[in-house]
């Protein structure tokens, strides 16, 4: 550990020995989080990431919602939501929906699994630094919880005109949302580095 910690939000210098060695430290002036580690083991994080991978797969394999009108049913999948917009010529919105709901969670899960499994096997993953940085940057753009609320709004609007049946994928995606939130709190940036550099907090 360096002797000094500088707050990334207000540039205040903290003496390492004065702020203590708890797992979560806040800036004394602006209350920004200076530092957070997790008590989770690499094995636990790998298990949660593998669960998230399975849930992401399920939520793309099955229909999200079915709409029943006059005996005929129409269903859509997660990818179908982006595809419909693409088909109507709204390519940027389709891309944004695809990236924020499927591709970014996919990248987060794949990158974490790759990095954590390598570290578990005591190997330095190739491209480790780039992957860690990408994972930190990408976090605000993963929006499964926003998508779930958006889906709720769409379902309520639709229920006024037809019978709406939530599909397996909707539940799988809801579970993915919770799993990803857990995974994020198990793998704070500082914890990567402690694992990578083989140091205990």
């Amino acid at each position, binding site marked *: 550990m360096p002797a*000094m910690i500088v707050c*990334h939000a207000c540039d*205040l*210098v903290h003496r390492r020995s004065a702020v203590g060695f708890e797992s979560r430290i806040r800036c004394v*002036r602006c209350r920004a989080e200076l530092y957070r580690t997790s008590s989770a083991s690499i094995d636990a994080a790998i298990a949660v990431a593998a669960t998230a991978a399975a849930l992401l797969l399920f939520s793309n394999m099955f229909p999200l919602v079915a709409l029943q009108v006059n005996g005929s049913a129409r269903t859509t999948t997660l990818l179908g939501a982006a595809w*419909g917009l693409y088909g109507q010529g709204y390519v*940027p919105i389709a891309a944004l929906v695809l990236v924020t709901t499927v591709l970014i969670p996919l990248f987060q899960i794949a990158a974490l699994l790759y990095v954590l499994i390598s570290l578990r096997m005591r190997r330095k993953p190739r491209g480790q630094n780039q992957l860690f940085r990408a994972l930190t940057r990408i976090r605000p753009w993963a929006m499964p919880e926003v998508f779930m609320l958006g*889906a709720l709004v769409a379902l309520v609007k639709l229920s006024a*005109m037809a019978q709406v049946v939530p599909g397996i994928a909707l539940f799988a995606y809801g579970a993915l949302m919770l799993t990803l939130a857990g995974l994020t709190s198990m793998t704070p940036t500082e914890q990567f580095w402690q694992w990578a550099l083989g140091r205990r907090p």
Partner: protein
Amino acid sequence: MTSYVRGRDLGLLVCTECRATVRAAGAARVRCPRCGAVVHERKPHSVATTTALVVSAALLYLPANLLPVMHMRTVFSDEDDTIMSGVLSLLQEGSWPLALLVFIASIVVPLLKLVAMGWLLSSLALRSRGHPSQRSKLFRFVEFIGRWSMLDVYAIALLVALVQIRSLAVVHAGLGALAFCSVVVLTMLAAQSFDERLLWDTGRDG
């Protein structure tokens, strides 16, 4: 009164990517020894970039709210929905909690973000010295709520994908949705490019 020492005064930098402490050592281009990212004392061109993004978002806020985001053709009618009329129709269907949610996420939050970012930027331009802690709280709030505006975009995406039944109703996305998406993305990028430390540089301590 406590005296506060800034990293800038001691030649200490903090890596914005991995939060490691980095010694400046007078070099023009400093790299983080831990993760290899380029480290700056302050994010370069933060105010100019953020201002450009906020102004673009503010210009697009009007078409985002005035143009239809969705078009629904049914057997009986042909109607355009703006964001506000979508809120009103939710209200008519009796689900006022959802109407309130969409109203806040799609109308209040983008407006709040634009006003707050504009206010923060002008406080920097005027070299305002007061209340950096309040201003940084406001900034963090804006940063936190930004993504929730995507809610309406996802709802529209699902309606477009599902409601394609010729005999009953067909939904098309509208140009307003494109403008709305741009507002959300631009304001999120504006929050990312803003350097919070600038708020504390001119302010009084505490």
